[in-house]
């Protein structure tokens, strides 16, 4: 299958920015495709790890950030573990997610950016994740109340999810981390 990319007007692709965020140089890729062959989701999505790398090498621009695989990637790191050139493809996907969220290119099936935002919000508030609260907010944000709702009474009854947020964390430390990183970024 031919791989096509759009050259950006500035003639500079996004691979430099990937390197800036992740520290990963994708130019060592040999296109052996061990990553794609081991990838558990490449059969269920419209792209593959090796294709993403090839497109980055060819100078793909921001249109790459709309690729579905960026959000179907499960960060299982099979790609990285099997790469003969030791390219951390899972790290590349993380960088692409950051960029996709920054540029607003993220429109995945199943709103992972929203889920991430909500879960991080619970950590900022309580110092630990609050699953039930996050689930409720996600369902409200995606209007998907009916999906999986049958599971909630069951896991509540079995005590397999906490009803209330945890109160034991060093919240001051966690808030300080969020604030210090935000301040450092503004500088």
């Amino acid at each position, binding site marked *: 299958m031919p791989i096509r990319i759009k050259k950006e007007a500035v003639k500079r692709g996004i691979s430099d920015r990937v390197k800036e*965020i*992740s*520290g990963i140089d994708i130019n060592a890729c040999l296109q052996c495709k061990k990553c794609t062959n081991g990838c*558990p*989701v490449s059969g*269920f999505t419209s792209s593959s790890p090796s294709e993403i790398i090839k497109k980055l090498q060819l100078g793909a621009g921001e249109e790459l950030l709309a690729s579905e695989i960026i959000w*179907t990637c*499960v*960060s*299982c*790191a*099979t790609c*990285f*573990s099997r790469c003969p050139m*030791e390219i*951390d493809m*899972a790290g590349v996907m*993380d*960088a692409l*997610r*950051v960029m996709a*969220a920054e540029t607003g290119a993220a429109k995945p*099936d*199943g*709103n*992972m950016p929203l*889920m*991430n*935002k909500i879960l*991080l919000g619970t*950590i900022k508030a309580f*110092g*630990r*994740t609050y*699953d*039930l609260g996050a*689930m409720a907010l*996600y369902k409200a944000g995606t209007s998907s109340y009916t*999906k*999986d709702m049958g599971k909630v009474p*069951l*896991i509540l009854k*079995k*005590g*397999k*999810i*906490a009803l209330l947020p*945890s109160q*034991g*964390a*060093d*919240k001051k*430390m*966690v808030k*300080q*981390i*969020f604030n*210090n*990183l935000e301040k*450092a970024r503004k500088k």
Partner: protein
Amino acid sequence: MKYAYFPGCSAESTARDLYLSTMTVARALGIEFIEPEGWSCCGATMAHQVDHDLSVSLAAANLLKVKDMGLEMVVSCASCYSRMKIANHEISTNPKTREIVSAALGKDYDGSVKVRHFVEIVLEDIGLAAFKKALTHSLQGLKVASYYGCLLVRPPEITGFDDPENPVYMDRLINAMGGAGLDWPHKVECCGGSLTLTRSDLVVKLSEPIIAMAKDSGAQCIAVACPMCQINLDMRQDDILKTTGHRYNMPIIYITQLMGLCLGMSEQALGLDKLIISPQETMNFIRS
């Protein structure tokens, strides 16, 4: 034997059973666990998708607490294990990351705290001989597919857990308990992990082949060490039945629960009542 034990957020919620069984087994084996005071989220599973420095800092805040305790950190959640190991790796190999993280924490952290999984300390520190000696019950030939998933074994350069393609640590424990640890092909496949709520359709597609392969390999239950693997494989069997018509009824049991049963501990102390697919048939194998 004394360690700093990091429970992780799931210990208070979706993996209460893993937490209860780990604590119970540790006590039975004479392992002393001290929880770092005010421990907080390690950044799993989403922070790394949003902000690299934040994900490393959240893990490092806990590693720093453990450093001050002068102990090794033991974790039972595979996801926390992975994030802690990655944070240590990033901080000790990338001076810029260390600088950013230390500024965020308000104190320098060098990435030096040793992080280990509970299964590792039972095998490596207690040892199989002493573990066998402590057993009061046996699995009586129970055929178990040990499922390791992603986070314990990958990336191998960073986690350093057993063998990345064919791990046997849990199998060694199963065999020591008188069970039969199966040699099967899907030990390190991915169950769909963090997509559990956002793309449950994919989780069903990824989980079913794992359960099917375990069944075809003769497994009577699947042993796990990761809260996400446990909940996906256990909770999604109902969705697998609804979408494919295939009924597996395969118990998905934490390795620590099996260990606890063979140490004579009660179902309640091990959180076995929290499993969705009933482990009753598995428990019928246990003999004193």
